[in-house]
């Protein structure tokens, strides 16, 4: 696919002797939604960190919006441009916000970095983003310690979206939330995708959620991709034994209990 907005080719990461990611390739179309699933330790986070530049690939290429980003950014401008292309929301809602900064200030800081809006416009945009993720004015002005995990995760999503990225990586971003909050955040995400055309790279070990949010899926095991395809197909009729095992080991409401095992 040459029109892919995110293209990952032959990605590899060694940590000393150990190989966390080996020969991972996939692509994400504009406004698409791709899931990476796999058990804990299978290398999903490492792939995400290499895409956003927090980790340097041992080998392979990452291309986002047609621009190579396998090497560290050389200029402040390039760093900022990359931030405007791909954003990430991490798993842990408790460390994802500066404890001394209100959500409004955090989002505004990103707007100052990425846009030339004046003060009044920035404020309006903060309100717009808050509205998009379902936070009210009082919550946006509070310190993070006064917000719940779900609210913080929504702030993190708003902050990521403030950069108007074409790609948003969600690394287990809803895993720490209880089911009803999780459902709210997932609705927010579906809504945002519809309104902004952002593409999602959705990392999760929760197959029910993956089915709800994504079109395609890759399955990772021990750092490598073992199966890929449309989400429904892969989850309904997994071909690789590991995917079958993965599906069987995470029974969830709405899932038929596998007949074997």
């Amino acid at each position, binding site marked *: 696919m040459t029109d892919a907005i995110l293209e990952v080719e032959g990605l590899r990461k060694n940590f000393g002797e150990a190989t966390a990611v080996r020969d991972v390739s996939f692509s994400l179309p504009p406004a698409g939604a791709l899931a990476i699933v796999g058990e804990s330790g299978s290398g999903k986070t490492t792939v995400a960190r290499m895409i956003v*530049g927090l980790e340097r690939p041992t080998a392979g290429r990452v291309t986002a919006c047609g621009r190579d980003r396998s090497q560290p950014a050389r200029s402040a401008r390039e760093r900022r441009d990359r931030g405007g292309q791909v954003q990430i929301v*991490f798993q842990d809602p408790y460390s994802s916000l500066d404890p001394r900064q209100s959500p409004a200030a955090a989002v505004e800081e990103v707007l100052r970095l990425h846009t030339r809006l004046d003060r009044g416009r920035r404020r309006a945009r903060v309100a717009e983003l808050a509205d998009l993720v379902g936070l009210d004015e009082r919550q946006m002005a509070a310190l993070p310690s006064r917000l719940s995990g779900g609210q913080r995760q929504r702030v993190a999503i708003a902050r990521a979206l403030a950069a108007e990225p074409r790609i948003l990586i969600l690394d287990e971003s809803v895993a720490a939330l209880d089911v009803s909050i999780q459902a709210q955040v997932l609705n927010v995400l579906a809504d945002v995708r519809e309104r902004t055309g952002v593409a999602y790279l959705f990392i999760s070990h929760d197959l029910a959620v993956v089915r709800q949010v994504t079109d395609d899926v890759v399955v990772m095991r021990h750092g490598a991709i073992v199966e890929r395809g449309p989400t429904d197909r892969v989850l309904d009729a997994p071909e690789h034994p590991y995917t079958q095992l993965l599906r069987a080991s995470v029974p969830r409401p709405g899932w038929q209990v596998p007949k074997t095992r």
Partner: protein
Amino acid sequence: MTAITALLGSSRPNRWGPLGTTAAIVILAAVALSVLGPALSSADPNASDFASAYAAPGAGHPLGYDGQGRDLLARLLTGSRTSLLGPLWVVALSMAAGTIIAIAAAWVGGWLDSVVSAALDVVFAFPGVLLAMLVAAVFGPGLSAAVLALSVAYVPYIARLLRSAALAERRKAYVQALEVQGLGAVAICLRHLVPNLIPLIAAQATLFFGYAMVDLAIVSYFGLGVQPPDADWGVMVAGGQSGVLQGYPAESLLAGGCIVVLVVAFNVLGERLSDGSGQGGTFGPSRWWRPRRGGAA
């Protein structure tokens, strides 16, 4: 004074407990007295009148005179300025250098971190007082030599603690989110990292103020710091020794008492601040890193 304003701005007094509050009041009172100094005693701290050597307290001279017939209250008040300004300089210099080194090492990591850690280990092994005396012996006695030497000697303690705190902070998701946003390293450090380390920095500054006060007094006591006839508490303790032998211990006792009271106050407050600095829960018991005098952290 920077330490005091920083800590007043960053921590709530009701968390300090009665002891911590008392310590803060003692420190504030000492600062006020040293600022108001000349207004409280009209006597010239350096004017000696041998006729009134060791004279008992009297009108206008509430603490009496020292062995050279100088007004004790005036000398204590003037001495408080050098005795507070010296440690203030030490703390300002060593905290600034320690913070910059710690954050650079934690941020850049890799070879810089290894080099810094190794260098800090070497300096670590050297007691501050000895270094200060050595420098004063080589470059000539005086307050600035001692202040510089002590600042250098304290940097490893400060940098080490702050490095691990900065490292923990740097790994937090919000810092990484800002990196992904494309905000520059310096901006992230100045706007986010340092402000979040301020409670710890203030606690360290307060503790080290007490240490610096003792160390500078020792250096002055041995004649390598502040030079007589300038008033300084360490100098006064030394100068009053002959009086002690003759049965007039007032000068040594008063100056020594001031040092002890303030050092204890700074230590108590420093402990309270570091207990409340919020770092304890993040990486282990709040006391493991605290440097003990003359020992490793």
